[in-house]
């Protein structure tokens, strides 16, 4: 393992992120904040939603922000660099094994996802207050879930970014990301699906369910949520699976 090369690649990604900071900021936070404003402020303020919905919504919004950021940060550059600009070739020729280049992408994506999650909490809280009942009772579980969610988003980005053809980017959002968000227990707790028993079982294949439910369990435990151990187990399994698929696809793209 060549840490100097690995560090230099991270520094390169940091430099690019710094350069695009404003764009990244709006891309990451505008949509969740608008959502929070409409559902948490307008709908609750006008009485169409009960006021506790604010607290119920927030963990889901954090999960969406993190997952979307991680997937976007890893997948979009990879799609462009492998198929269009070939920018990545310079790094493929750096003295480090191919898998570590993919892992560097995952780490960079995870960092962005964690930052997105940690920034959206106070931002959303500012929009929603007063009346948000949020507290971190179990910091260890909370940190573990944040890291595992970030890893799942970045590994998912790696797998998607190395599998999807550039003309199918729109399809990726329409067919993968959008259903994932709506069936990801982001705007409602998993228990709310009990009147749709088949759907309630089906959505368990969606890793975003565990992200939303895990954040709900650690931030707003007063609402029904999946058990933390189940969330942690599922996230570890999804992370491992997506990383394995992502590394395999990356290697296929990198060496013809």
């Amino acid at each position, binding site marked *: 393992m060549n840490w100097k090369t690995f560090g230099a690649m991270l520094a*390169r990604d940091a430099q690019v992120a710094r350069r*695009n900071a404003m764009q990244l900021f709006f891309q990451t936070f505008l949509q969740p904040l608008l959502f929070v404003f409409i559902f948490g402020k307008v709908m609750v303020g006008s009485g169409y939603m009960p006021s506790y919905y604010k607290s119920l919504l927030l963990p889901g919004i954090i999960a969406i922000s993190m997952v979307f950021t991680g997937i976007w940060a890893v997948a979009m550059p990879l799609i462009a660099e492998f198929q269009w600009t*070939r920018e990545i*070739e*310079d790094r493929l020729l750096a*003295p480090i094994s*191919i898998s570590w280049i993919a892992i560097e992408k995952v780490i960079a994506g995870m960092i962005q996802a964690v930052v997105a999650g940690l920034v959206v909490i106070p931002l959303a809280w500012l929009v929603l207050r007063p009346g948000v009942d949020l507290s971190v009772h179990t910091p260890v579980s909370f940190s573990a879930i944040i890291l595992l969610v970030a890893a799942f988003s970045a590994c998912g980005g790696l797998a998607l970014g190395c599998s999807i053809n550039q003309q199918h980017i729109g399809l990726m959002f329409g067919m993968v990301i959008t259903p994932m968000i709506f069936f990801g227990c982001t705007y409602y707790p998993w228990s709310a699906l009990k009147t749709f028993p088949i759907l309630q079982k089906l959505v368990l294949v969606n890793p975003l369910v565990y992200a939303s439910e895990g954040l709900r369990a650690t931030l707003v435990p007063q609402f029904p949520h999946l058990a933390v151990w189940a969330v942690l187990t599922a996230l570890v399994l999804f992370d491992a699976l997506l990383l394995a698929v992502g590394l395999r696809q990356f290697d296929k793209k990198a060496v*013809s």
Partner: protein
Amino acid sequence: MAIGVRTHDLRKVYTSAAPLGAAGGFIARSDAKGSKPAKTQIAALDGLSLEVHPGEIFGLLGPNGAGKSTTVGVMTTRVRPTSGKAWIGEHDVWQEPAVIKRLIGVVPQRPNLDFSLTAREILTFHAAYFGIGSRERSERADLLLEKFKLADRANQMVRGFSGGMMQRLSIARAMMHNPEVLFLDEPSAGLDPQTRILLWEIIREYNQAGKTILLTTHYMEEADALCHRLTIIDHGRILALGTPPELKASIPGGYLLRLRFGNQTADLLQRLQSLAGVREVKAADGTGADVYADRGGSLIPEIAAVAVSIGAELSDVHISEPSLENLFLHHTGRSLRD
């Protein structure tokens, strides 16, 4: 101490699309699910064995699709061969890829510069990937930017660079970590003559510093002017190997007269063969004949007389002097630019 490059019996069979290096153009590869064309097997390399001596400028010459980019791809860890081996110095390319990457610098056929960075950052980050300290990489970047006449654009994003500027920066980048072996895939494609001459000077200078250089080209002049030795490849096989003068001397007679007649018969070819100075006559497409001879223009009256005597009117003549182009034509019956 310069190091060489060897390959042994390299074969590469593509089952789907062409290689990254050779799949020119900006179009995505169509090997995605959904559009499944019948899988055809294309042998890009067919038992290619060659040896590049330490410290020489070696040329791979051939038409588009001959297997040049695939050969470079295999030697530079980017294309996994179906069978066979490649070594840089004593290191097996596919056993120790990370070691190999330290020894080589690669200039791809199509610029692959990092569009998210400035010209200077492209050089300094590249050096950082190779573990070069910040002061040294800064100094080297300045030196190379100056040498490649890019110093005034150093802090600009490369997105707006012209093709020639991108090509120069690609070469500067490949030299940043001072590699022992430099691979240049079609280095002067699309360059204006002035830049091409600058490029040749830089390649020679780098070679004089004791480095081995392997370049691919389909420009005869380039191979002739730069290479100590070269090989002509087509369909993934070696057709000829030697120094440019040796290769040119191997063309029968040296001169090539491409003739076209009103009609062409076996008798005509035979009569041409019997003319003094003619070494070899090959029937060319339709009504043509390629005559290899040790004289050029002075043969024409005799050829015209032969044609008249058997009623085959001579309609077109093209004479070329000894060149690598003729050598390629001699081996394949096709022009390099076909």
